[in-house]
């Protein structure tokens, strides 16, 4: 052990680096911050009562009222939802849907009506199927995102799965899983809201695909028709 008197000049003032002194002055008092604590509750998952549930969340850089109006106008749905051939209002709350492949009239289609249950402009739309063989319901929530990021949109779909086969109605006519349809529909909604178009490689030039190339197209889900967005062709 050395003699501490030779260890060097003593510090003159208590030394407070800038970032530490900031801790004192600009952060909220802890008791106020304590109000922010919460326990995470997951959105409903599939349960063992043969209901399938799927959800998707996106942050979209557009205000909630504009997004609400875009979603609420069902006549626009074929431009961004997959496998919707048409959606026609029959009344203020009832819509008639025709689902199928918009690009192939010979493909299977189904038709059914839905009814809006809750409709809070800028906040929430919920709906359910009126067709007794398609037990499906859903809701979309619009909430402000933090800062200037826009709106958080939460889409949930629930469907009764008879015999474990069919999920949401669209699954009857698509090659996608029901869960993936919910994810892709909300993604397309974000794309059309932020850019006016849906990215599309359907008429992409390419050389001969061969058998394996064609199989891969199917496996990657590329044979799902892309919704037209604001259409040119």
């Amino acid at each position, binding site marked *: 052990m050395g003699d501490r008197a030779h260890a060097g000049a003593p510090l003159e003032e208590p030394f407070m680096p800038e970032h530490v002194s900031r801790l004192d002055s600009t952060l909220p008092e802890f008791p106020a911050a304590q109000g922010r604590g919460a326990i995470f509750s997951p959105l409903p998952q599939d349960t063992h009562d043969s209901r399938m549930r799927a959800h998707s969340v996106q942050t979209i850089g557009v205000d909630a009222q504009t997004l609400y109006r875009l979603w609420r106008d069902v006549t626009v749905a074929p431009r961004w939802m997959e496998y919707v051939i048409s959606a026609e209002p029959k009344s203020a709350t009832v819509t008639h849907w025709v689902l199928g492949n918009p690009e192939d009239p010979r493909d299977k289609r189904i038709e059914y009506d839905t009814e809006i249950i809750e409709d809070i402009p800028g906040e929430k739309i919920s709906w359910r199927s009126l067709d007794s063989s398609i037990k499906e319901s859903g809701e979309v929530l619009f909430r402000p995102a933090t800062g200037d990021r826009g709106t958080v949109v939460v889409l949930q779909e629930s469907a009764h799965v008879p015999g474990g086969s069919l999920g949401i109605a669209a699954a009857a006519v698509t090659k996608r899983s029901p869960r*993936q349809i919910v*994810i892709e529909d909300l993604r397309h909604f974000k794309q059309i809201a932020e850019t006016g178009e849906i*990215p599309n490689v359907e008429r992409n030039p*390419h*050389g001969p*695909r061969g058998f394996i*190339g064609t199989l891969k197209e199917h496996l*990657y889900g590329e044979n799902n028709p892309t919704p037209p967005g604001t259409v040119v062709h």
Partner: protein
Amino acid sequence: MKAVCWMGTGNIQVHKVPDPEIVNPHDAILRVTRTAICGSDLHLYDGYIPTMEAGDILGHEFMGVVEEVGPEVKNLKRGDRVVVPFTISCGNCFFCKRDLWSLCDNTNPNAQIAETMYGYSGSALFGYSHIYGGFAGGQAQYVRVPFANVGPIKIENDLPDEKVLFLSDIYPTGYMGAENANIQPGDTVAIWGCGPVGLFAIASAYMLGAERVIAIDRFPERLKLAREYCGATTIDYTDNDVVVVEALRDLTGGIGPDSCIDAVGMEAHSNTLIGMYDKVKQAAMLETDRPFVLRQALQAIRKGGTLSIPGVYGGALDKVNFGAAFGKAVHMAMGQTHMHKYLKPLLKSIEAGKIDPSFLISHRVGIEEVPDMYKIWRDKKDQVTKIVIDPWRDQIGDKIAA
């Protein structure tokens, strides 16, 4: 039109395919005047990037003349000469608005594939597999350019195509690699890889204030360009007397390079035992990427230094000395180039004569010669440093080095 198509691992063919058309309102159709083969195209050629389909048109470095524009493209018209960035960005999402253009939310039609692999999908790329959207690339006579109101930069000077072509990828990629290295005046920077991206990174490092740049490679023609055009101190790592980590210690006064740049990526070559380990594991599909350069850079870098990674990685690493990164408090920055941030300033640097990007072109070919050129490019034969293609000529055969 004619297009260069990937037909399988190691199998490139030129085919006649339909011309592209306007599909979406922000599209434009470009007649390609010049294009090139990228080092990252070799990962496609060698089969290391999954989700390629036979018939995919390759190529993401291209420029040309606007033929047709969609109704929402107001800033371009038929006849405009443009260079197109290889990333496709919408300009209106969270990421584009923050200059993070290669992370665009809205341009990948196959976002679900990238989400499965990476958690979230970045932007689509031209000609770079279906994870990145499956868009037809520019090693062809025409290309469809989505979001043409956002991406392409107009060229309104008299410079020949080959002096501005590399704005499409490699010059901004090298520049961002150098910018990500957080170079301070007086710093020493070590760069692995004297391919085109590495060479532009060397030049950019000097532009950003580096005192000295050390460049590491094994091909004499590439080391020569690094030395004579870019002013680097070069290290040939295949020299039996050279131990790279020791050389970097000796060249930096015993401290190690302040910044390291990995311009090599996932197909790193090495003669050593661990290099063999990587090759064997990769061949057996037990390891997707070969991180030899990463290991060396992490060992060599100065304490508190910055490691910048413009070299492409796609999958998973094995046996990387992350303890060295932690133990030395290393900063890391990486990713696909945020192209749109750099196009205007780098075009200015070319117009002002600060750099002549055509310095590294070694081969000028026509479209029919491209399949053979992929093999030469991969095997580093014929002193190849960069291959530029005129897709409207079948054969040029000009192999004079710059």
